[in-house]
């Protein structure tokens, strides 16, 4: 009896919960059965989402716009539809929409009036049912990709070289120890022999006299020669480095990393150095160019808060003050150099003269910028005359089948650079 009674009780309670659940489900803004959950709809929704929404929205994470999963639980279906189709219209009339618009920094969502009702339902199907945990998997994938790419960069040969050197040193030390042991064993063995005369005994037990070695003429001669050679080499190297700023890597007012911007994010040099194809100087970007991205990026590596280095750009813009970068490449005033002539006309890569800038945390002067360095390049670089009809005849008449070098078209004339 009592078992039966308690069973009915359980049934009643369970029934109550089912009823409650149903009530909750039915009272939520969108009825669950409205949203299709078949695979075909989800797949169609996914491609729509990728083409139209993914730039600003993620399913489970806040991005430029809010995380979308669960939106059908938060809003009525007509509200969602009119927001997707033309958010500006809804924002003008609806308080909820206006609050949401302001919460996300007043970024306008473009109208999507081209989406049919059916397509919006497919979108919602994907938003509610698709790729559960997908965002995270994507992020993880990207992270491991980046890691792999970075570890791939490390140079293996130099590591091998160090290992080989260490092994060699260890082996040599072992040989030395073994030799020492052999000597001591042999000395002991000979000393134990009875039939040795005095001379032989003295020979066996002789000690190496270090003082004598140091004072020997041969030793002094060798040491002096080495010291003089070293001094001469350092002196000549030092003299040659006068007037050459190769390796100059001054601290800049903002700790800007080319490795991050040009390397990791692959931003082209020209994006910031806009003068390189049209003028003498490549130009240092003005703060408004920094702000194209940094109005949104306020800290490094997605961290919260305001990086003090990035804040310096904001200060410069607010106070209308230039950022006083330290010039690294100082060509003497007596030589003329034009960037556009080399980059636009000659098609020379930035890295040819500036080194692997995209790997530099702090930029250092890569090339010596001496006249010999310029001339060397002018002597060995082929002029790219392809597609320039002016040169066709010139190459035919003057060249013996070989491409013309820069030197052949006046690359060594004094007045090209000195005037």
């Amino acid at each position, binding site marked *: 009896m009592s078992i039966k009674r308690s069973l009915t009780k359980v049934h009643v309670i369970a029934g109550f919960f089912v009823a409650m659940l149903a009530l909750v489900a039915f009272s939520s803004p969108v009825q669950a059965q409205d949203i299709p959950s078949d695979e075909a709809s989800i797949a169609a929704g996914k491609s729509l989402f990728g083409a139209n929404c993914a730039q600003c929205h993620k399913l489970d994470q806040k991005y430029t716009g809010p995380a979308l999963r669960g939106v059908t639980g938060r809003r009525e279906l007509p509200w969602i539809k009119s927001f997707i189709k033309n958010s500006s219209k809804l924002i003008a009339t609806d308080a909820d929409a206006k609050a949401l618009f302001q919460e996300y920094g007043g970024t306008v969502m473009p109208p999507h009036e081209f989406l049919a009702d059916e397509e919006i339902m497919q979108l919602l199907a994907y938003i509610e049912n698709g790729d559960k945990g997908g965002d995270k998997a994507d992020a993880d994938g990207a992270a491991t990709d980046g890691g792999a790419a970075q570890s791939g960069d490390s140079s293996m040969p130099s590591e091998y070289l160090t290992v080989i050197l260490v092994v060699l040193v260890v082996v040599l030390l072992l040989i030395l120890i073994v030799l020492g042991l052999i000597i001591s064993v042999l000395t002991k063995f000979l000393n134990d022999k009875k039939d040795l005369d005095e001379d032989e005994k003295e020979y066996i037990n002789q000690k190496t006299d270090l003082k004598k070695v140091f004072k020997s003429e041969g030793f002094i001669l060798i040491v002096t020669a080495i010291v003089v050679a070293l001094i001469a080499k350092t002196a000549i190297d030092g003299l040659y480095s006068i007037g050459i700023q190769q390796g100059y890597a001054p*601290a800049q007012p903002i700790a800007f990393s080319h490795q991050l911007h040009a390397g990791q994010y692959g931003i082209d040099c020209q994006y910031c150095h806009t003068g390189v194809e049209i003028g003498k100087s490549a130009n240092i970007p003005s703060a408004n160019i920094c702000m194209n991205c940094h109005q949104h990026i306020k800290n490094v590596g997605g961290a919260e808060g305001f990086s003090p280095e990035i804040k310096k750009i904001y200060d410069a813009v607010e106070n209308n003050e230039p950022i006083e970068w330290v010039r690294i490449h100082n060509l003497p005033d007596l030589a003329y150099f034009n960037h556009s002539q080399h980059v636009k006309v000659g098609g020379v890569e930035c890295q040819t003269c500036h080194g692997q800038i995209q790997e530099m945390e702090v930029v250092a002067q890569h090339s010596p910028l001496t006249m010999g360095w310029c001339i060397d390049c002018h002597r060995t670089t082929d002029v790219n005359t392809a597609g320039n009809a002016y040169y066709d005849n010139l190459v035919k008449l003057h060249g013996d089948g070989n491409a013309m070098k820069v030197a052949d078209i006046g690359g060594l004339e004094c007045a090209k650079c000195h005037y």
Partner: protein
Amino acid sequence: MNIGNMRSITKYTLLLSTLGLAALTSCSADGDNPGVEYAPQMYHSIAYEPLSQTRDKEAGKWLSNREDGLGEFYNSNDNNPHGMNMREPAPNTVQRTANGYLPYRIPMDSLEYAARVVKSPIEPTEQVLAEGMKLYTSYCAPCHGDAGDGNGSVGQVIGGVANFKGGAYINITEGHIFHVITQGKGRMGAHGSQITPENRWKIVHYVKQLQTK
């Protein structure tokens, strides 16, 4: 010559050469030290030099023979704000360019008007499209991606980057694209100062081509 004498000579030579070496090693550039300049007067421009500025009036006074009594290396224009050697264009003047482009004056919020009225002065020839692709790769691809689908490496950090092939953008006019490049829109900054009008049109033609792919 006796040995003592020779010893002292060796000692002095060694001392002198060590001192000399110490002096020489500080000649080469490293870190914040630009190294020793040979004939510094040949390095430092007397005329105003863009992108380099020395505001210290005493710099290089030890070899100066300037008439104004300032240091030899002083290179800064006191007539300009912050002593800059470059000047901003005079207000209310118009830059004259070889192709006759006048400054773009349609304000940022008049996108719909610009989309209707602004028309390209250049034809999308093969060469224009090739140059457009190069420019697109430099100026647009970091955010909008090589294929124009809005997933460039920088774009993923910034977020909210337009997918040119998405329904909201597939039918935009050339005037719309030109206006947005010049003045910016939404989260995108104005790129008018970085890209010449002619190059902007090349990019526009390339983007229109990209949308059909």
